[in-house]
């Protein structure tokens, strides 16, 4: 990892987007004091990462949902959570209360006595969420929590993350699910061994290009396009029978463009405003670094 500078505020949901091998898991592992950094400085709640005395304190206040959830397959769901609760020094009464509360919230309380090895992938992922929360950490790290889940389970997990967000927990989420990042995260960092871009989804979309106007015509020919290029200064792209025109201010420029097309002899069938999606931004930024 290089050039990785960012700050996550208290109560914020921060997402890391990046292709495989971008360093998302490595970053989480460094922040969770699992592997050491070679240089640079990082702090979690005023505790210094890399300082032996602070590492234990950091691990006390964080919860981790790793990429591979990893449970003791011969122990029950409850026993697994209870074990972790004990390691986090969570008092017995509170531990049991939290296990029950989170398993109920995630809809798997009835599976509490089932062997962890017998649970489906979706249930294990939910169990991993409960495990990360059993000691009620302030900060939660999640490494692709919905990867390979069916849509229903993925939605449950996403809704749960949103519920945690409401509770004011700080969440650090690794994902390559753009839709998930857009729905859940307050801010997103795009990563590919270094931090390429950072901002809220709106800012990232705006950072790529301005809006575009897509105009479908009954027919497009060379003469019409060259005539239009003389009449309007905007960048014009042609795709099938559509014109895709860059606009800085759609409300102001669209009427002029439409009038120009009409006077050049074009027959307009449909006008659509295109705003770049997070996917467009992501693909563009990642492509630029190749």
């Amino acid at each position, binding site marked *: 990892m290089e050039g990785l500078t960012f700050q996550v505020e208290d109560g914020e949901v921060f997402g890391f987007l990046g292709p495989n091998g971008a360093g998302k898991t490595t970053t989480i592992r460094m922040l969770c*004091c*699992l592997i050491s950094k070679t240089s640079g400085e990082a702090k979690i709640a005023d505790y210094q990462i890399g300082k032996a005395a602070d590492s234990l304190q950091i691990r006390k206040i*964080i919860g981790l949902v790793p990429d591979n959830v*990893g449970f*003791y397959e*011969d*122990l029950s769901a409850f026993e697994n959570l209870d074990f972790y609760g004990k*390691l*986090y020094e969570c008092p017995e009464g509170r531990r049991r209360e939290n296990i029950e509360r989170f398993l109920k919230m995630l809809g798997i309380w009835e599976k509490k006595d089932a062997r962890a090895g017998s649970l489906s992938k979706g249930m294990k992922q939910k169990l991993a969420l409960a495990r990360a929360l059993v000691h009620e950490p302030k900060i939660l790290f999640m490494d692709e929590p919905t990867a390979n889940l069916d849509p229903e389970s993925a939605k449950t997990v996403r809704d749960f993350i949103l519920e945690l967000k409401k509770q004011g927990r700080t969440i650090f989420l690794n994902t390559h699910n753009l839709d998930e990042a857009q729905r859940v995260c307050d801010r997103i960092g795009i990563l590919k061994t270094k931090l390429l871009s950072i901002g809220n989804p709106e800012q990232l979309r705006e950072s790529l290009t301005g809006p575009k106007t897509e105009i479908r015509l009954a027919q497009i020919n060379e003469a019409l396009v060259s005539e239009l290029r003389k009449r309007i200064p905007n960048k014009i792209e042609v795709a099938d029978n559509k014109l895709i025109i860059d606009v800085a201010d759609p409300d102001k420029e669209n009427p002029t463009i439409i009038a120009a097309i009409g006077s050049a002899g074009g027959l307009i069938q449909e006008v659509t405003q295109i705003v770049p999606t997070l996917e467009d931004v992501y693909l563009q930024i990642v492509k630029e670094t190749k």
Partner: protein
Amino acid sequence: MRISKAWIVAAKDMRVFLRKRYAIYSLVLFPLIVSIGLPLVLRLVGARLSSTQLPIRMNAFSFFYLIGAATLPILLASYSLVGEKIEKSLEPLLATPITDSELLLGKSIAAFIPPVAALYISSIVFMVLANLVTHNTLGYLYFPNWTIGLILLLLTPLCAILSIEWSVIVSSRASDPRAAQMQGLFIALPLLAIYVTSEVGAISLDTKTLLIISAIILAADIILFFLSTKIFQREEILTKWT
């Protein structure tokens, strides 16, 4: 180091062992065979042995407890360590506020207590039965004596510790518990060699010999302690073990 943290890990591991059929078989089968099988052998061959040959054979049989102490912990320790790799539970475990030494101690306790307890229980049965079948020939109760006392109270724990430390070293490279167990069992070969040597009469397993063996195992324990703790480092475990 907080012993309470190590104990949480040990209790969890022991709970897992109790649900593994092969772990139960390993803990029961060997001690059962030694405690009942060896007195049976003494009963069968005892009549043909003189009262001077019989104690030599009984001391040699006591040595089986050392072979058990060197092998049984390996079966549990290798599962405990390689099992974490297979179940991919190392990352969430290492993310908890537990130190490497607490984790290693917890895993060592889990691999130490059940085999040593099983061997101690088995040794009581062995001593009672062996006394019963040899009393007529010897005219006195042979066990307990200094030899088995040294074997059980000094050499058995030392051997079990050696076996666990060796397991940590071989488990770091293995991706399958059985492979780790196979490699781990090499630790029993020198002990088997001592047993065979004593059976052919080349050495006598008297107090002096046992103390020399204890000193050698203690030295090996110390060397392997440094090696195993060097290997059992958080970052090493996470990046190279998994």
